[in-house]
């Protein structure tokens, strides 16, 4: 008998296998929702798909009476903008700081402990400080995302640069490379796939910090909306919003993976 570890599904079978639990989850929800509604047609905890659709139609299609905007889209835009700015600042800073820390032992000795210290502080504990310093506007929310993911990204990139084989660094020096050329031509290109990987790993925490910041002080945003309608037990809005957030996260991850595979084929063992 073939060992379990040696049973490898083909691509088609793998796709089917992967879809099964998701479909089962949806099915289980539909059954539970239907049975609750059979007992109590006004149930709000597990809304039917029709209820979700009609609630979402309001938010997606119809302008809000107060602001005149379609709330779903303005929420999405506001959240993605915060997330994008936060991720952008973090990515560029992590790349620069990681390269410098990884390549220059003197800088590593000076700033390494600082980065390690900041990295162990739970970012949400800093949120009150950020609100006091930056006020309740956009910058506090972006700052929370940056503080939340940047230290770990810097450590990841710096560790990767440091782990480049000594032989390679020595070889580059015997070929005449200066410190600057080592950074630009040897370390930077090799760390790029790792940077994209670090961004992918940081997407999860970045969403957590975004939703937290929006839940506490905001007037627009996906996280704000979820926490607002919670007061009315509006599961018909919360569940589609959560699904939409999941979809956005998957799409961002997919795009980043494509960039890494297309742009840095050498790092993916391409033939």
């Amino acid at each position: 008998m073939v060992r379990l570890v040696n049973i490898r599904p083909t691509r088609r079978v793998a796709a089917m296998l992967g879809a099964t639990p998701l479909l089962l989850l949806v099915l289980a929800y539909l059954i539970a929702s239907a049975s609750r509604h059979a007992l109590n047609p006004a149930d709000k905890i597990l809304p039917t798909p029709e209820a979700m659709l009609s609630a979402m139609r309001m938010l997606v299609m119809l302008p809000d009476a107060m602001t005149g905007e379609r709330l779903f889209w303005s929420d999405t835009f506001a959240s993605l903008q915060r997330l994008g700015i936060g991720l952008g600042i973090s990515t560029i800073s992590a790349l620069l700081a990681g390269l410098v820390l990884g390549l220059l032992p003197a800088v590593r000795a000076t700033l390494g402990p600082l980065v390690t210290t900041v990295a162990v502080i739970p970012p949400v504990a800093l949120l009150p400080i950020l609100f006091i310093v930056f006020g309740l506007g956009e910058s506090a929310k972006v700052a929370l995302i940056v503080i939340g993911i940047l230290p770990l990204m810097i450590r990841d990139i710096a560790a990767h640069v440091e782990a480049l084989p000594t032989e390679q660094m020595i070889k580059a020096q015997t070929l005449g490379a200066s410190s600057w050329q080592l950074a630009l031509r040897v370390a930077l290109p090799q760390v790029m796939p790792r940077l994209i990987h670090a961004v992918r790993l940081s997407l999860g925490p970045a969403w957590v910090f975004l939703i937290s910041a929006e839940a506490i002080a905001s007037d627009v945003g996906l996280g704000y909306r979820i926490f607002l309608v919670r007061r009315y037990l509006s599961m018909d809005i919360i569940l589609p919003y959560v699904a939409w957030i999941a979809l956005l996260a998957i799409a961002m991850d997919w795009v980043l993976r494509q960039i890494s595979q297309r742009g840095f084929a050498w790092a993916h063992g391409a033939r």
Partner: protein
Amino acid sequence: MSMLSLRNVWVEYGEKVVLERVDLDIAERSFVSIVGPSGAGKSTLLRLLLGQEVPTRGRILLDGVPLKPECGPDRGVVFQRYSIFPHLDARHNVLFGLECAAAPFTGRLFGRARRIALDEADAMLAAVGLGDSGHVFPAQMSGGMQQRLSIAQALVKRPRILLLDEPFGALDPGIRADMHVLVTRLWREQALTIAMVTHDISEAFTLATRVLTLDKRRHDPHAPHRYGATAVYDLTLDRRVAAENAHSASITIDDNVNN
């Protein structure tokens, strides 16, 4: 004429003495093999020559000038592994050294200068037998091809001395024999000076004009680190040297058969 000289060189790590009283002269165009048991300081000696490490005491002179305590383009190196850039294809791996010298800020060449440099890189690739593999990335190369590329990369800088650190240790016997032929040919054609650390005694004697054996002269069983290693045997292989002289006399007549 001695090109590289070590004068009373010691290397100590705290209490531990790795090399002691190493006096050595390496002549231009010689091929020196360095053998010895593990832990006898072969790699330390190579790192000294490379400038990766500084002697605790003593002096190292290259062409009569003290060696800078840093690796530079006057010394080329090929390690057993990891000495090529995985993110560049073969051509750009070789081009790298030319670009570093010519473009200090961008690290890249453009236009005509780039075409000239690429021609030089292609010629060097052809010389190591990788003429058709210019666009292959290291991940798709066999171990032998990777070492050929590493040699091409080092030689394109025309180093004063080429240092080889167990360059063929990870290769299959057949490939290793091919590499021996290649290194011997390049050594002759390009008038190289080579220092090679190896575990393989027969390789040392096949390739070199001179074999150095590093070992400890004295050994204190109660303090094994008290004494360092030095060159205990220094054999000049007259037979190989004579063969080389005969070869260079006849080099215009026949170039390939005498390998």
